[in-house]
């Protein structure tokens, strides 16, 4: 998606603000969460921002003790994003999976409305076993929102077989000071069983948050790992 501007506000800033709002909600701060409160229906950049955040736009609704139920406005925001940015026939695995993640999250975390949600598009997992670990790690970090509980169980199962490789990717990402990649991988590792204790995942998540927390998306991943999987401190 090309960088668009709305007045003087670029898409990246809209996404950053929304990520901040989601992370606040996951920490139980900032009042009851409403997606349409942080990304307004009708704002030109809202569909793109929702598409980029993917399932994370709905992450606060996945909490057991959430402050608010999603309403029609929130649902409308999601429907608009799904309609605006469907993955094309030549979509990358990442694009297909992030779209699928938003659809799955809508099914799981939003009330069933009058209209049915679109069926989740097919997204393959063959690449998980075949991709060398550095590239696999980068790709999986881009799917961090799918680490929300219950989403993409088939993908999670495949990734569990690559836990050591993803852990190596986490090490590599931290060494490269690629905090967003490290946070995304750390979040997936928080969901996967049998992460090697010598990785130091809990302290690693805390470290990445301290070092890379200037990026709200980094903070969002770390907060989500803690909120949903109890990892990090």
């Amino acid at each position, binding site marked *: 998606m090309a960088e668009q501007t709305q007045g003087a506000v670029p898409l990246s800033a809209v996404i950053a603000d929304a990520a901040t709002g989601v992370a606040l909600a996951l920490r139980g701060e900032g009042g009851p969460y409403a997606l349409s409160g942080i990304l307004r229906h009708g704002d030109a950049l809202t569909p793109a921002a929702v598409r980029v955040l993917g399932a994370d736009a709905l992450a606060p609704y996945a909490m057991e003790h959430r402050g608010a139920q999603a309403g029609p406005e929130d649902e409308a925001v999601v429907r608009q994003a799904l309609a605006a940015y469907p993955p094309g026939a030549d979509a990358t695995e990442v694009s297909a999976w992030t779209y699928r993640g938003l659809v799955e999250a809508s099914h799981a975390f939003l009330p069933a409305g009058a209209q049915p949600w679109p069926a989740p598009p097919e997204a393959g997992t063959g690449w998980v076993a075949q991709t060398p670990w550095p590239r696999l790690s980068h790709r999986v970090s881009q799917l961090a929102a799918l680490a929300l509980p219950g989403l993409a169980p088939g993908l999670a199962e495949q990734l569990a077989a690559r836990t050591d490789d993803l852990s*190596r990717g986490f090490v590599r990402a931290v060494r490269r000071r690629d905090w967003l990649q490290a946070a995304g991988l750390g979040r997936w590792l928080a969901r996967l069983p049998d992460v090697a204790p010598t990785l130091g995942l809990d302290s690693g998540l805390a470290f990445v948050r301290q070092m890379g927390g200037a990026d709200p998306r980094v903070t969002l991943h770390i907060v989500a790992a803690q909120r949903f999987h109890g990892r990090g401190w």
Partner: protein
Amino acid sequence: MTGGRGDPGLLDRMVRGSLGWLDEARGFFRLPPNVTTDADPNLTLKPLGELAELTQLIGVLHPRDEIRQSARGLFAFAWNETRDGELFAELIRGEPFATYPVELYATFAQAGLRHADADELVATTTRLRGWRVAREDHTRTLNVLNAERRLGLRQHADFAAVLALTGLGRLPEPWTLDRKAVYGLTHDVFHLTDWGRNRQRLSPEATGYLRLWLPSWLDTWLEEETWDLAGELLAVTATLPDAPYDAEAWQRLAAVQAADGSVPEIGAAPTSGDPAETFLACYHSTLVTAFAATLARIACDEAEAGPATGDPALVGGRTPCESESAP
């Protein structure tokens, strides 16, 4: 990183190339007349000591006879440069409390090369209480302890207790290791295993840790083009039981080895055409390449032979006095 038998042809070409370049570079390893007075030891004694340490190992352990012969030639050259050990007596008289002359001398002593005056001096200085005061660098202390063992001296501290203070003892979070820490960790392994001769000394915890995290460190330092460190990590990889063979990493290292056999330490080799500059930029990483390819070659042979019982390929080179010194 995949298991498997590796590529003996590639590994042998790399060792031959490295030793060939080192042989041509003998002139730069020669010690100047002022070596015991005001010459910079980092430009004189350190290169010669590394040459001796690694060619001694290759000369004993490499499976190919012609490679062993050429390594032995370099080792003999190095001993000759010490004037059959007289150098060590002079160095110790000059700096009686420094560890480096003892560490250097021990490299030759392990091969049975001794000098009577140096032996007497070492026996005196290493018996002092002052010798037993803890040093700042625990990894380096492991080398001092190995030197004492090689010289048949009483070790001034407990090897296992010192090891416990190092990276290999602590097994830090793998994402915390900067360049200095990785160098330290590789040398912890080299000192513990006596440069791969006694690989069974690696604990199962250390083995598991290294097997898991070496691929990420290798990737990082290959990408940084820190070739000597990548070579050291490949050497450590080859010390693991049922050693994995990282074909891609070896190919990347092979690709930076020049036609003359040299491997630059970092990035590209200097282009000034100044042979002295080229020597300093390449000698360490070229030696490391020969060493790592030798250990990897031994691991290839073991994979070929099937599961090893003990370390059959290394029996001939196993450290003497092992029973006294194993932690």
